[in-house]
């Protein structure tokens, strides 16, 4: 739609310029006096344009989108499925879940354990910190992908793709974990 190459390091200014250019053509405001049919077309096209722009503007969404184009399937799993726990996190996650259970139990009994809450806060912050590290790591693979794409280097592309997929899956798991903790903490 934007006529841009499938690269991850993209020129944000050029993208914005294109977005504005298309908006001027497609936006419902420009077609307010047109026929019903044209208005519907304008609405559909503009929502597509906006959705596309939003995806490309956001670094994570952009990466995911590109990976999907490359055939990667992300599980739209909104929970923290125990079978998906990254091996190196097993122990930490196990402890965390114990603590979460304890907190839920406390909440049910109407008790409060400030120390437990503090520990969970700390764990949450630690995981949240890992999230931003992961973001950095995904970013650092962009160049590898872009270069492989330019060189038409299939092996390089696959390597970058697999690395980013693994990082994103780990990220998605952590994200859900952080949300779980936030929800449980917020519920008391």
């Amino acid at each position, binding site marked *: 739609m934007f006529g841009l190459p499938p690269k991850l390091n993209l020129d944000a200014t050029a993208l914005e310029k294109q977005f504005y250019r298309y908006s001027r053509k497609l936006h419902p*405001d420009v077609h307010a006096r047109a026929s019903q049919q044209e208005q519907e077309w304008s609405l559909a096209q*503009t*929502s597509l344009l*906006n959705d596309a*722009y939003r995806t490309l503007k956001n670094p994570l969404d952009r990466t995911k989108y590109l990976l999907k184009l490359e055939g990667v399937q992300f599980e739209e799993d909104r929970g923290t499925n125990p079978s998906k726990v990254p091996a190196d996190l097993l122990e930490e996650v196990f402890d965390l879940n114990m603590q979460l259970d304890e907190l839920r139990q406390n909440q049910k009994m109407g008790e409060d354990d400030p120390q437990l809450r503090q520990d969970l806060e700390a764990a949450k912050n630690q995981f949240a910190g890992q999230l931003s590290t992961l973001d950095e790591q995904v970013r650092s693979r962009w160049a590898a992908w872009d270069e492989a794409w330019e060189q038409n280097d299939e092996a390089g592309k696959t390597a970058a793709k697999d690395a980013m997929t693994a990082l994103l899956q780990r990220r998605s798991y952590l994200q859900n974990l952080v949300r779980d903790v936030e929800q449980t903490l917020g519920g008391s």
Partner: protein
Amino acid sequence: MADERVVGIDLGTTNSLVAFMQSDKPVVIPGEDGLNLVPSVVALGGGRSMLVGNGARPILLSTPERAIYSVKRLMGRGVEDVVEELKFFPFRLVDDVQPGEVLRIKLGETEFTPPEISAHILRQLKRNAERYFGAPVTQAVITVPAYFNDAQRQATKDAGRMAGLEVLRLVNEPTAAALAYGLDREKEGIIAVYDFGGGTFDISILKLHEGIFEVIATNGDTHLGGDDIDNLLIAIALDDIAGDTGTDLRRDAEAIQAIRKAVIEAKIALSSQSMAQIDVQLPKGGHYRRELSREQFEQLIQPVVARTMAPCRDALRDAHLTPDQIDEVVLVGGSTRIPVVQQLVSEVFELPRRGKAPRTELNPDEVVALGAAVQANILGGGSKATEDMLLLDVTPLSLGIEALGGVVAKIIQRNSTIPASASESFTTGVDGQTNVAIHVLQGEREMAKDCRSLARFDLKGIPPMTAGMPRIEVKFLIDANGILHVSALEQRSGKQAEVAVKPAYGLTDEQVESMILESFDHAEEDIHLRQLVETRNEAETILSAVEKHRSHPAWQLLEPDERAEINSLSAELTVLKQGDDLQGLRAGTEALDKATHRFAELMMDDAVTSAIKGQTMQSADDKLGQGPTAPHPIAQAEFMERK
């Protein structure tokens, strides 16, 4: 005129306005009384006829149970949302409204939904515009608080339809204000619009680039405004009175209206003075007086004003901006006249440190309507002034659907540029199931029970298959008005699934349709009553002018029989004014007007530019423009000039 004019309407909590683009400049269209602001007050006259604006105000004070103001607070809301409002607002709700149903308000013994009340305000604005143009007006852009949810937007659109207006677009109020400011000159950069009105608070951050107004983030509180400040002052007055006299006036609507009027006057005075007096003659006897210093006032309202800070910070965070990246801050809404509010804005956006001040050149009461007129012009085909302008707005709240366990799965994030869409696939859980229920929500919270329920959809007519086999693709689309549309398709059969929409807190199309018809039934009655009220106002103007100028030396210059005639005509008119005889009242007003001509001349001869001249001229002008669609004499002159 080939093209019909599209007007811009600011349907406010406290006041409403209508504006249009006159060549390259938006202007507000005054009402018949010459005033730009139409108070958002609606009152029941005789029968089912309605009075709007200044004409409804006396009823609000004399028989508050027949009048309503701030109805915007009830638009698109359910009975469980308004518990707080009812503590302070004398809304008389019908008791048997169930949660999820549209509220009904009682005026006298008649029931109205909030959109119907708003429709009466809109109809008044439509009439004002028609009178001004001398031509019908059927299309409008109406503004809504940026933080309005889907139900509140839909209710506003319904109100437009009931008033006989095709609503070409709902525009967010702060965005409209940005449009009005952006017209002045070529602007580039990032601006924040801080809109603190009578009942709502919005903050929007926009990026301006070559005529494109791109909203980056918006936030707000649809329950925060100048009304809340008034309520604080009223509470104090009621406490004082209870303490002094032992009378609890909390249930006395008439007394509360009188106090409200007095505290608003004091509040306004405190924006320019360091001390003000709340001074009320209580309707059932007694007098309440209290001094209030600006310092006390500021201390008192601090908690209300401070509530605007969190939305500002959230908007900045969502926009990934720091305060010093905001180039300009525009102030909108009457409450931004309060010095302590301006001070807070300056602090939040670190303006003084950067040698800047908030922008206030355009009248904060009018700027939204002016912006609506700009957008109306853009949609109406544009003009030289607006040809490069394009507004890209966002949805203020995330859209989600209820998933297993009452959790919300977000499908369109807040601050997404609209129109925006998302698709989700659904399937069945039981063999042969032909219906799937979907619950759509709006809000930022994780649990469905904490979000605003927008609608429950039933996907019907799914071909019977094994559980999990059907794949129903549901498309959610938020249009440029911020209103949700849903369509569904069963993928395996390619069959368009039927979507039965049951809007929460909304009216069905049929209900809206019937409300339009109802108002037509009463149209004639309405016109008669309005004319009566207008003529009464005119009579009142002349009578008070005569009364006022009796002490003028010119009075003694009149012949005794002239004075006698004026006296007897005045007495007659005073009686006529109490009745319902429109023709008699008109004749009486004209007769007194005529009889006082020489008096007016004498006063002018006396080299005194007295008020009576202006007033009789005014009433003469008004008579030329009595009918709802009759051309306004002043407007006509302007049309001719432009030719």
